[in-house]
């Protein structure tokens, strides 16, 4: 009787050990699956690079002799006029919109903001990446968000 009780106890212990090993193995496999999923997100980095470059490109683009879009944004915000004779503030917005539309995929929505200039392609609820630049000697912040 004592021997039978010992055998049963040993069997139960073995079974418990097997269950523990199985649970540890299961947790390990699940952890491996999650670890392999947590790779750096290339899409996020790509969008970030795109947003940074696009904002910088827009600011720098020359639209008339010695005047770039950044200068015109400041002029439109401070004086409501442009330095270029053949462009007004509405046309400036159209130029910025055209550069953004031609640079991004059709699937990308965006929101460009620079003082009182706001250009966006809706819906722009979930912002995936955003980049901003403070214009020197001004309180205007040029912001571009890709959604």
């Amino acid at each position: 009787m004592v021997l039978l009780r010992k055998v049963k106890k040993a069997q139960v212990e073995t079974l418990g050990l097997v269950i523990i090993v199985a649970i540890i193995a299961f947790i390990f496999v699940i952890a491996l699956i999650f670890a392999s999923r947590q790779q750096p997100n290339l899409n996020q980095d790509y969008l970030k690079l795109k947003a940074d470059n696009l904002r910088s490109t827009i600011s720098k683009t020359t639209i008339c002799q010695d005047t770039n879009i950044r200068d015109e944004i400041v002029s439109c915000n401070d004086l409501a006029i442009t330095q270029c004779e053949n462009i007004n503030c509405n046309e400036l917005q159209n130029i910025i919109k055209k550069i953004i539309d031609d640079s991004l995929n059709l699937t990308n929505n965006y929101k460009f903001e620079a003082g009182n200039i706001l250009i966006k392609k809706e819906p722009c609820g979930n912002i995936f990446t955003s980049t901003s630049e403070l214009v020197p000697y001004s309180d205007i912040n040029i912001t571009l968000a890709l959604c």
Partner: protein
Amino acid sequence: MKKSQVQIQESILVILIITIIIGLALFVFYRFNLASLEKTKLEYEQNQVFTLLATLPNSPELSYTEFSNPQNSLDTLKLLNAKLTNQGFKEIIIKQIYPETSNVICSKENYPDCNSYVIYNNKGNKKNSQILSIPVSLYFPRTQEFKSGLLEIKWYY
């Protein structure tokens, strides 16, 4: 039929079935492995193209520098003469998007009345392709103007 013969037949049948099951499992494993390898290869190439997109605009061969300071722009005169090598099966093009100009590939003869600069072209005999692009600023030294462009890398696999 003797009992032993039946047992041998049973054993042969079992071995056959097990062999078929193992063969099927190996085949499935091989296909899965192959698909996984293809996916890894594609991801690796995508990473490589992404790295190239991030670094190419800052390379001294292409970028516009003022007193050795990089200006985050591509010098279009440098683009005319740039010929990259050993980049694999890719096509690297820089297109001007604003102001819009005629859709012509740039050369020393037609510069600056053109809109795209092909700095690398090796398509090989691959059929599939993917494109990644980023906006870049283009500098025109003759007029000292900056224009908007797009750096496009099309890679073949």
